[in-house]
């Protein structure tokens, strides 16, 4: 009996296999009929689900705003095809090939560099261009002709923050804390150390194990070592934990954060405390009135979007980046003059676009040419971000 059931199950699975194959569109690079598909390669489960979903939100809003694109006199509908890369390198290749299999014209994403590097070879193999939205590790685009990105890089961001620490606080001693084994955290800490020490400062580095939740020892250590600033380029959940614990310990040393800390969940943790938190980011709310208003309306009228944004309507920088990425993709399609993935790939390097997060253009490696970052600070009284300054890196 059991064997029969097992056989039936196996049969059903094989059938669904065929169904999937059948459902997948016929050949035709990136377009069938009058639809162009854009792949969204983002984490919606796992550690970076929070950031990934906010990035998707920006793309979905942009898609609802401009659902069509005109190519060669013909109007195409643009459809977003999602694939969850599960925030982990071992799930990323299958998610990438899922998108390749759905015949998308190009890919946007991902949040997090590790998954981008794991998925990258699949895109390269399929001759499909990918535009990284907020993957800031140098190795994402290096050695992969098909990966581009619209954000700045780790070394630039660390440079900006190190300079800011010295300009604003005349900091001499910095305490850096990152997650062990996370290339994002450790990369930023290493670059920060290079710049800060080159300028004559002293840097103490420390790492915590994955899934750690007690940060009081680290924070107390920073205090007892007499650090002038604490640099914590960690992912959202850890950042939130660190902020909460710092406020109960009464830490009055300013915190510096990277783009991941520009998140409403982190902001919420600083509300009503005496913490000083400064983050470098891609976008500052108020940068574009129309975008702010539009996305807030979109979030308010869509319960799934509200959940994805953590239950309120504060705009995260990654959402703005997702929004810009979508428009860059449309520009690329227009420039290519056809929905063919090869043509689009060839067109991307020439794309120039003025987005809500600033103007975007690509250099020879495929990285965005950016020389400024916004620094903003958490207004702990009202629980909002306040604009601090536009910071440029040290001259290169």
């Amino acid at each position, binding site marked *: 009996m059991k064997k029969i059931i097992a056989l039936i199950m196996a049969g059903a699975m094989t059938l669904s296999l065929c169904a999937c194959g059948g459902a997948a569109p016929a050949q035709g690079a990136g377009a069938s009929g009058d639809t162009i598909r854009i792949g969204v390669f983002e984490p919606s489960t796992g550690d970076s689900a929070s950031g990934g*979903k906010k990035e998707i939100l920006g793309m979905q809003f942009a898609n609802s705003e401009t659902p069509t694109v005109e190519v060669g006199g013909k109007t195409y509908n643009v459809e977003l095809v999602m*694939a969850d890369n599960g925030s*982990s390198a071992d799930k990323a290749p299958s998610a990438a090939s899922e998108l390749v299999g759905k015949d998308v014209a190009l890919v946007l994403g991902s949040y997090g560099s590790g998954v981008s590097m794991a998925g990258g070879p699949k895109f390269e*193999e399929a001759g499909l261009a990918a535009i990284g939205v907020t993957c800031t590790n140098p190795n994402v685009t290096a050695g992969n002709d098909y990966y581009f990105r619209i954000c700045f890089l780790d070394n630039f961001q660390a440079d900006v923050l190190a300079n800011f620490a010295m300009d604003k606080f005349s900091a001499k001693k910095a305490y850096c804390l990152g997650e062990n084994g996370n290339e994002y955290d450790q990369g930023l800490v290493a670059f920060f150390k290079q710049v800060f020490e080159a300028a004559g400062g002293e840097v103490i580095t420390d790492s915590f194990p994955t899934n750690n939740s007690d940060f009081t020892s680290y924070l107390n250590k920073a205090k007892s070592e007499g650090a002038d600033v604490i640099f914590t380029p960690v992912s959202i959940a850890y950042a939130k934990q660190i902020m909460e614990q710092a406020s109960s310990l009464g830490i009055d040393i300013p915190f510096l954060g990277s783009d991941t800390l520009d998140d409403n969940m982190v902001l919420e943790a600083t509300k009503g405390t005496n913490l000083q938190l400064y983050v470098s980011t891609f976008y500052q709310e108020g940068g574009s009135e129309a975008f702010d208003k539009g996305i807030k309306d979109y979030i308010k009228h869509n319960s*799934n979007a509200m959940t994805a944004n953590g239950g309120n309507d504060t705009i995260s920088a990654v959402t703005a980046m997702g929004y810009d990425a979508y428009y860059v993709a449309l520009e690329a399609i227009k420039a290519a003059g056809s929905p063919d993935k090869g043509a689009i790939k060839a067109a991307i390097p020439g794309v120039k676009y003025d987005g809500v997060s600033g103007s975007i253009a690509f250099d020879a490696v495929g990285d965005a040419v950016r020389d400024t970052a916004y620094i903003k600070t958490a207004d702990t009284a009202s629980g909002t971000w306040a604009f601090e300054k536009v910071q440029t890196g040290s001259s290169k």
Partner: protein
Amino acid sequence: MLENLSAFIPNLPQVFQPTSPLFTVLKKAAVYSLVAVSMNLLNGFTGLFSLGQAGFMLLGAYTYAILMVPASQKEQVYYLFGGCAFDFSLPDAFAAIFGEGGAGGAVGMILSCLIALILAGCVAGFFAYLIGIPVLRLKSDYLAIATLGFAEILRAIFQWQKLGPVTNGANMIKGFTTFSSFNITNASGATLLRLSTFVPFLVSSVCILLIVLLINSSYGRAFKSIRDDEIAAEAMGINLFKHKMMSFVISSFFAGVGGALFAMYVANAQAKAFTSVMTYEILLIVVIGGIGSVSGSVLATFLYVACSEWWLRFLDSEQYIGAFKVPLLRNGFRMVIFSIVIMVIVLFFSQGIMGDKEINLGALIGKIRAKRERKQ
């Protein structure tokens, strides 16, 4: 081989296009099935409950990756540490012997890859031997938790920034030979023959065949007797410790090879991927397939990987049946359904798909024939 179909037969359904998810899933399943079978050798055939598989995979993956990054790539890969402290690289060594391109290059690549795979297994096996000396004296759950702990310790060491010049710290090692490197291309870069799915299948099948041969040998019978009753086995003159160690080291060897294949599959090696969650996944596969059944493990791997990473993906986005919007579907729903499916299998098929039996093609054909004859 299936991968090449589309080159010969035009207008094939999308599934058979070389870029289809089918082949990615097949590659991953080939890799995982080797690891699952190696875990089954330990858990199912020797009765040693070990949860260290991810740790041994990590050792294999890093050994392979460190040996295979060409010197020209090291500067870029180890960019945080200003190059690698470990200068040797197998592909370069073989390129020096056989030359760069053409047939010599191919021979060099295959040889270097093979040697790296074997070394990956050896490193994992060697560490298994070292840990085995103290740990194998422990019983059931204690052994499980000790090996799990060992895997976690290994992960922390490989992520340590101080070892960066060798392990690249938190960064991933990439730029080495992967499955796609085995696709044969012509001078202009167009692919002539795709072997990227064939290679993992070949390596896994050879390894699994070796394990099956071992299981059917006198050693295998000794393993099974230890599983069934340690005291009786000892009374029959089987050296418990020696055989347990042998099973542990061999299983780890193949887990190491599996880890190296895994690195080839994801095209990078990063300690972050080898968590206890990975071990649990493999254990689930072993149990779903049936503890003590090699063919069960293989079958379960293919079903598991395809289910979790391919067939159920539609659950993650909004779907319409006609004009009706299916409720509940949104990001993350796939994993909820998938875990329910697993619970159902565990609860209602507690013996797994195959129990401890093996698929026997000959017997199957015989049965069908007998049925036909009866009908006539």
